């Protein structure tokens, strides 16, 4: 029976004559379908549109006060820390996880960089490497607990948050290392604070680093196998494993990358605030998650584009600066930012729906 089988049931006799052309339908033409297509294939486009819209609106309301190279690059600077952390957060959220320890890891890494240099007199470059290693290690612990012990990421990173933050306070003895000292003795720590002035625009290396980081991650996620695995694991871990992806390795690598990026954020933080301050970054987790979600990445994993998080962070930055310049006072600003966060995502949802 194995040779030249009697082609099954008799009703299948006509199958050999079945057409073998691929189904073709006329493509709908015109601008609208084109835009829809673009929105579909580039998920980060939607937050980008919201971002541009909000810049335009504030530009109209505030004129040159807002719509100046100075103010616009200021937003980049103000957003850089949250932005870098949001990049780390995006990776974790894409795997259907969440990282509440980002802020703590960032601060501890910067404290390590500072204290190693000043308390133990280790050369700054070595201290910086130690700080980066420290962040990566914290990330590894997170990843190991999530992947191997199979604990929920929320709990793991919540616990790590407390542990790392307390370690940070205990280790640093709550002492700030002052900017003047750093400038004098280890200016490398402030590297990311270096300013490039172009006319009114003032870019810092930190802001540039953030932009490059996002481009790099976008490349990694879209163009390499690792990136596809990150999406697959976040989409459905079990299916990913069944279909041959080493889900645990991917998870651990993602949390390590997150830790490393947070450590870079810690370095950038020294550049931004000048000093090494153990009390910074307390809101980094909630702010980074906000940026990621506004950027259109699903908290359930597997869906969204990392560039969206950059736009998400910038949207919040634009709102904050814009509202402040409009003269809203602090509580009103918080209230309005609350409204606008919901509004931004509602617009995002609406654009998606209209383009479906």
């Amino acid at each position, binding site marked *: 029976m194995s040779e030249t089988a009697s082609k099954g049931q008799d009703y299948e006799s006509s199958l050999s004559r079945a057409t073998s052309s*691929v189904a073709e339908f006329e493509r709908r033409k015109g601008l609208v379908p084109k835009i829809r297509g673009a929105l579909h294939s580039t998920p980060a486009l939607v937050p980008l549109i919201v971002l541009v819209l909000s810049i335009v609106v504030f530009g109209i309301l505030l004129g040159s006060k807002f719509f100046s190279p100075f103010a616009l690059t200021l937003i980049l600077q103000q957003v850089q820390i949250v932005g870098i952390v949001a990049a780390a957060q995006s990776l974790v959220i894409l795997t259907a996880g969440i990282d509440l320890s980002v802020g703590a890891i960032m601060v501890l890494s910067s404290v390590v960089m500072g204290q190693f240099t000043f308390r133990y007199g280790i050369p700054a470059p070595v201290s910086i490497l130690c700080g980066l290693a420290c962040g990566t290690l914290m990330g590894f612990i997170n990843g190991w607990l999530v992947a191997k012990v199979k604990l929920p990421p929320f709990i793991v990173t919540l616990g790590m948050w407390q542990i790392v933050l307390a370690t940070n306070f205990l280790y640093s003895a709550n002492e700030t290392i002052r900017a003047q000292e750093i400038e004098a003795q280890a200016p490398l720590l402030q590297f990311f604070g270096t300013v490039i002035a172009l006319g009114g625009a003032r870019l810092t290396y930190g802001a540039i680093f953030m932009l490059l980081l996002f481009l790099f991650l976008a490349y990694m996620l879209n163009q390499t196998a690792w990136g596809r695995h990150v999406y697959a694991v976040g989409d459905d871990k079990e299916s990913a494993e069944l279909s041959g992806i080493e889900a645990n390795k991917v998870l651990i690598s993602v949390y390590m990358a997150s830790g490393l990026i947070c450590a870079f954020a810690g370095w950038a933080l020294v550049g931004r605030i000048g000093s090494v301050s153990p009390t910074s970054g307390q809101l980094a987790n909630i702010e980074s998650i906000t940026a990621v979600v506004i950027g259109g990445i699903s908290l359930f994993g597997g869906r969204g584009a990392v560039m969206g998080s950059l736009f998400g962070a910038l949207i919040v930055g634009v709102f904050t600066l814009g509202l402040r310049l409009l003269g809203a006072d602090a509580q009103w600003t918080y209230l309005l930012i609350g409204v606008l966060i919901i509004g931004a995502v509602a617009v995002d949802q609406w654009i998606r729906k209209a383009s479906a």
Partner: protein
Amino acid sequence: MDQEGIGMTIQPVVQGRNIVKHYGHVTAIDHADFDLFPGEVLAVIGDNGAGKSSIVKAICGAVQPDEGEIKIEGKPVRFHSPLDARDMGIEIVYQQLALSPALSIADNMFAGRELRKPGFMGTVFRQLDKKRMEEFARQKLTDLGLMTVQSINQAVETLSGGQRQGVAVARAAAFAKKFIIMDEPTAALGVKESRRVLELIQDVRAKGIPIILISHNMPHVFEVADRVHIHRLGKRHAVVDPKKISMSDAVAIMTGAMEPPPVEEQQLTPKAA
């Protein structure tokens, strides 16, 4: 059920003995045996819930049995995950398909063994060769007669039921080295597409790779199978030769309407070569 006496020299590719799996109160596998021999198509048939999917999952490491032993080519193995099995060249089409819904067809097809661009971009920047993967995926689907897939970049969750199944079957067939397990590969497929899968199974066998085929479609089973393993209530109930037994007797044994033939009349090993 010793089979050493009969076939003598043929070593089974897979040999499972006394496999047991409980889930809480539920008994999914109840001291089941299993044998797959080189180059054959072994069909597994049985009622819904008989434990067919469970036993093949136990074989490929997707489920850890509570008891029993499994040998691959004579060597006892204990797979901790399906990855271990895949590394040995074992491919499986799961009944629940195991696709990542949000990813594209090509991404799913190449999950875990992506192709990189040739040259610098591939080795240093590790860039994927998306074009090559898409072409390959498109080709495989067309081979299966799935010509209605309009865009190869569609997410799998937007495919029709049959198209999804096609992706899973194409993936397994393309990459298997040692053997393939197909758990109801044609359940959602159309007439034409099912026919292509049967042809594919015969092609694979022709290459010398054995296949385990789980199916409820008796005409299909009797058309391609070399031996038919009848599973009932978590156990191997009988193994019969589809050329010697009628479909209706096989169905009767499977549903409990008829006693299985005595062991010596069963087809526990393929006919001596």
